[in-house]
């Protein structure tokens, strides 16, 4: 699903160069649920940004779903983001001027689907996250957990192959966090590959594979994990 080879990402500011990722290689197989842990500043978000085509990298190769994405144009990258990737943010990132329905609609709009099929997809996604009744609410009228569920509905509505979540439970209490985790597991079991950054070891343990980052490098604990339900192949190995 996702293969990075010797990826390097350097942030340059006036005085400092930060090597956010260096010689970073990873392979994530289709259907995996990977949790990413590591201390603050270790490069987790950087990894997710690159994986989600939100940011460019300086060296190395990145193949997503069989496509070398390092050479895509801005337009092509937008298309890949729209069709193959669903993003879930720590801060939910709902658009406050839009109601729940229109928020979930956003990625579908950019796909140019007809109104009827969009409506059906949105209703299904909202049903999945259990918010069908609130489609007319505005984000400010929802609790944090509800907002994140809307964001999850928005991420999965286009049926992307890859879900990327950057500390999706970081702003939520543990009960809500667990609910969100349930949802992510549900999405994973229906076929999507999930990569989730978290600081919570308990949540991380629920993933099919855990990886650890330290100073922009991968530390694979190589723990044996049960393979995901529907994918009989062994979990991908970090190189």
């Amino acid at each position: 699903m996702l293969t990075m080879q010797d990826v390097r990402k350097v942030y340059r500011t006036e005085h400092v160069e930060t090597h956010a990722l260096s010689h970073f290689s990873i392979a994530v197989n289709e259907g995996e649920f990977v949790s990413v842990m590591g201390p603050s500043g270790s490069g987790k978000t950087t990894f997710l940004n690159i994986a989600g085509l939100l940011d460019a990298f300086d060296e190395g190769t990145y193949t997503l779903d069989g496509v070398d994405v390092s050479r895509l144009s801005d337009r092509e990258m937008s298309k890949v983001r729209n069709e193959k990737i669903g993003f879930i943010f720590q801060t939910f990132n709902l658009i406050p001027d839009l109601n729940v329905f229109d928020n979930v609609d956003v990625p579908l709009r950019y796909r140019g689907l007809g109104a009827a099929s969009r409506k059906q997809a949105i209703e299904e996604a909202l049903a999945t996250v259990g918010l069908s009744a609130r489609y007319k609410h505005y984000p400010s009228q929802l609790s944090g957990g509800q907002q994140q569920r809307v964001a999850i509905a928005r991420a999965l509505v286009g049926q992307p192959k890859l879900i990327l979540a950057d500390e999706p439970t970081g702003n939520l209490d543990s009960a809500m966090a667990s609910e969100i985790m349930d949802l992510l597991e549900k999405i994973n079991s229906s076929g999507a590959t999930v990569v989730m950054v978290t600081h919570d070891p308990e949540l991380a343990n629920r993933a099919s594979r855990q990886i650890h980052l330290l100073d922009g490098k991968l530390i694979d604990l190589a723990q044996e994990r049960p393979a995901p339900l529907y994918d009989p192949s062994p979990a991908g190995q970090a190189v």
Partner: protein
Amino acid sequence: MEFGPIFRSLFQNRARTWLIVLEIGLTLAVVVNCLVLIRDQQAQIGRSTGMDEQNLIAVTSVPFDPAFQEEGYSVASYEQDLREIEAMPGVRSVTSILQFPLSGSGSATGRRIAGSEDQRTTVPYFLMGPDAIDTLGVELVQGRTFEPGDFPDLHDDDEEQAEEEEDTDHVTNILVTQYTADKFFPDGDALGKQIEGNNNNVDTIVGIVRLMHNSWPLGPDPENLMIHPSHPVNNRQTRYLVRTEPGRFDEVFVALEPKLREVEEGRIVTVRSLSEMKGNYYSSFTSMNQLLGWISVLLVAVTGLGIVGMTSFSVTQRTRHIGTRRALGATRGDIVRWFLVENWIMTGIGIAVGVALTFGLNYMLASMGGVPQIQPPILLVSILVMWLMGLLAALIPALRGSLVQPVIATRSV
């Protein structure tokens, strides 16, 4: 397109939306009414005054030589002037006149149908010498022009000639414009009819001029006019109106002053073209028009800048949302389009409100007097300009918004 969600989201930002809508609406209303006013005055300035303006020269002679105070001197000089000017090469005809047409200064007096008990209405008039009609170049549609018998005797009592009108029990043969004729005699039978002034002085209409403007062509009643036969000569100043042959204006214009000073030295001679006098009179109106024009331009510019500012602000405010949209698959074009459609809707509502305000303002100004009706082409062009201006104003910040990187979405704030 994202028409629906954008439309709904506008109502989540009511203050901003209404501010832009009102700004556009008010600007449209003021600009359209200014343009209508300008257009109307331009049309007034451009219309025919009935006279052969291009070939008319206004000459004023102010004597300073004490000889002019001697009895008969002014009159003799006046008669010689007329003869000499007439004989100049390139001159078609010449007449004397008390006040120049189109100049902004003139006289008016009360008149009513002779023998009636009507209220007297004000009629501007000119006192003019022989050859008045031919010199003015106006078209006589009924009756005749002045004949020598219409004029008072020049050698009788020159001091009082100009005030001839004030004499009692005197019948004068006069010319009037069609406008004035119709005003007193709407049935079209004015020729030969009489009108009267204050002291039982009665005028008989002997000729009707199709069109001629009085001294106030931008006044409410520019075509209201009568012409009295007179020799408007006195020892203080005398005025002549000279009509040149076509194409010989410049030649006559420069030759006039030397010629008159050759005839009689002891005076100051001023020579001006009638077009120049008209231009002077119109200048206050044209500068008013220019002011209105600049106000319109300025208003549109300020509104444009306002939209640039508001859109810029909302782009900055929504940087994170833009990043999120980019992360969810929006292309740069999608982002630009989003802001443009948003602006397009606001401008649209603004214009709708503006059209209502335009007619409201027009109605209000019209009831205060002086604003003509709205001409649809002016309204349409203004709408188009506002629309384009709105889109253009939104384009710059929208393009800036499209440069927001998708990675902004995951930045911790």
